[in-house]
């Protein structure tokens, strides 16, 4: 209905040179129901409208009605891809409310799972990015090799994607020695493959043609628009929650913060591949240094009155949970701010043609994909507790206002 109206007004509108291409909510480039409207001039993008409300499910309200244990599984399903980051963040927040620390072995397992999930997420992204630029063979290869890490996760947790491994007070499953060997073997395979994909990314002419110089985000803009995660690091800003605000064992386990300074999609590809290689090493370190002992402490169902903020570096960037407890078994308020939400202003910036570089329709998918968007969390964040949430269209005017504001 609405679409038809839009089309009608479009025909009448004064922009005779322009027409709009809707991408999504049902579109192969975005398996997620977000809605972008791009204003194009020929093949050149001159403006972007965003609507990410399609995925609003009412999670934050539901969190207030369920007890802390049930919430683990609800939180986990904010996003299937970074479910480990979400449950980790949640568990940390509730442990902070309790004022308890978990046993060291549990911390090692948490960190290992987090990094395994990062490997899986980044490889998934690499495949998706390849698919975006029409490189299906690379997509197939990356996803084939990703099965290695999926199998490991399945072996460690009992499901390929939703791990359900973090719980309040530790982790639910221990890692056996046999499993450790398998993980180590898997890591060797992955390291070799990832190095190969790094070579492909560096050398393949068509990949270079599609990624270099596309989707520029200058460091200044990145900071002003509050970009996070690999998006920010690909603009050359060294910023990583794991270093700035170490949780679990990130102050012990050595790793490098990867940055890259070409500021384009290509930089985001390489940052992610290199980060994955770092993660491989971190997993190995965890396996080698894991102490013996319990993996879980028992905590009462209701934490004492208090509040806590928990931060985690999810695969897509900084994830923040805020928890407030009123002493009952249900939280008083639970707020989630996910990385994609924080990256949305940046992606709009990348997608708008500037005087010094142009954005093509063909570039839209890869630029959008380059922040590794996960709109389920974004919509959930942005449209918290809206019921019949309808189109929120970020109009061109608004977007421009936003951009000019940020440039000031």
């Amino acid at each position, binding site marked *: 209905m609405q679409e038809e109206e839009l089309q009608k007004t479009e025909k009448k509108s004064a922009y005779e040179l322009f027409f709009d291409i809707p991408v999504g909510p049902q579109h192969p480039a975005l398996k997620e129901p977000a809605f972008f409207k791009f204003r194009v001039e020929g093949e050149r993008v001159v403006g972007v409208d965003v609507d990410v409300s399609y995925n609003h499910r009412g999670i934050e309200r539901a969190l207030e009605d369920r007890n802390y244990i049930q919430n683990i599984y609800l939180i986990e399903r904010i996003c299937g891809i970074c479910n480990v980051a979400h449950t980790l963040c949640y568990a940390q927040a509730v442990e902070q409310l309790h004022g308890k620390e978990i046993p060291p072995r549990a911390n090692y397992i948490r960190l290992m799972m987090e990094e395994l999930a990062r490997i899986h997420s980044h490889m998934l992204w690499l495949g998706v990015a390849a698919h975006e630029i029409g490189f299906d063979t690379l997509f197939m290869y990356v996803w084939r090799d990703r099965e290695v890490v999926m199998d490991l996760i399945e072996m460690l947790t009992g499901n390929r994607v939703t791990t359900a491994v973090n719980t309040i007070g530790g982790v639910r499953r221990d890692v056996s020695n046999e499993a450790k060997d398998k993980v180590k073997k898997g890591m060797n395979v992955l390291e070799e493959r990832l190095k190969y994909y790094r070579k492909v990314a560096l050398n393949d002419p068509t990949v270079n043609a599609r990624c270099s110089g596309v989707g520029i985000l200058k460091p200044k803009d990145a900071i002003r628009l509050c970009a996070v995660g690999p998006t920010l690091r690909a603009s050359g800003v060294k910023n990583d929650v794991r270093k700035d605000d170490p949780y679990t064992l990130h102050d012990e386990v050595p790793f490098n913060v990867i940055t890259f300074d070409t500021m384009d999609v290509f930089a985001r590809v390489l940052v992610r591949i290199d980060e994955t290689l770092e993660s491989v090493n971190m997993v190995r370190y965890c396996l080698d240094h894991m102490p013996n002992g319990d993996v879980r402490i028992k905590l009462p169902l209701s934490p004492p009155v208090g509040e806590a903020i*928990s931060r985690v570096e999810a695969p897509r960037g900084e994830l923040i949970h805020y928890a407030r407890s009123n002493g009952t078994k249900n939280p008083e308020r639970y707020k989630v701010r996910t990385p994609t939400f924080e990256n949305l202003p940046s992606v709009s910036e990348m997608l708008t043609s500037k005087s010094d570089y142009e954005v093509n329709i063909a570039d839209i998918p890869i630029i959008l994909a380059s922040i590794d968007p996960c709109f389920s969390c974004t919509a959930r964040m942005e449209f918290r507790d809206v*019921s019949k949430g309808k189109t929120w269209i970020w109009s061109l005017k608004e977007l421009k206002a936003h951009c000019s504001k940020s440039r000031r």
Partner: protein
Amino acid sequence: MEENEVSEALKNKFGKKILEIKIPKKGEKVAEDTLIPEIMEIKVFKRRVFVTVPIEIYKEVIRYLVEELGFNHVQAMTGLDAGKFIEVMLHLGRGITITVRTRIEKDRSVLSTITDLVPGASLHEREIHDLLGVVFEGHPNLTRVIVPEGWPENVYPLRKEYHPEQPKPIREMS
């Protein structure tokens, strides 16, 4: 910047006007519970500062934090219905997280915007306006963005008096 330095700086600058500064410490609030006998430190509670300010100096404090202490990243903004009041919390960060908290009365909920200090706060403020009915004075475009068209004027979904209901099936289920 360390937690204590921030706290000192804020105290020096604003003195008594600040209602409360709380830095949850290592080892605090431990072992009242009986379930675990051994005392454990709280490691994760590092790098958090909670500052409570009256509404009058809310913007001053933020301007000071953003412009002089360099905490120019808006991590999130939380709104919360606390009975008679609405609590607005701004989480600012670079490294450590500083939460600036203020309370406004529910029926006269007006707060000055901070979008001129940090452009990235725009969406966060609109979200809180939409869900809790807080008016951010001076915001360039404070329209309701989240609730659908035709949503009643003075109904704010995150306020406690709002009772949500599940949509009805449109089709008879087999």
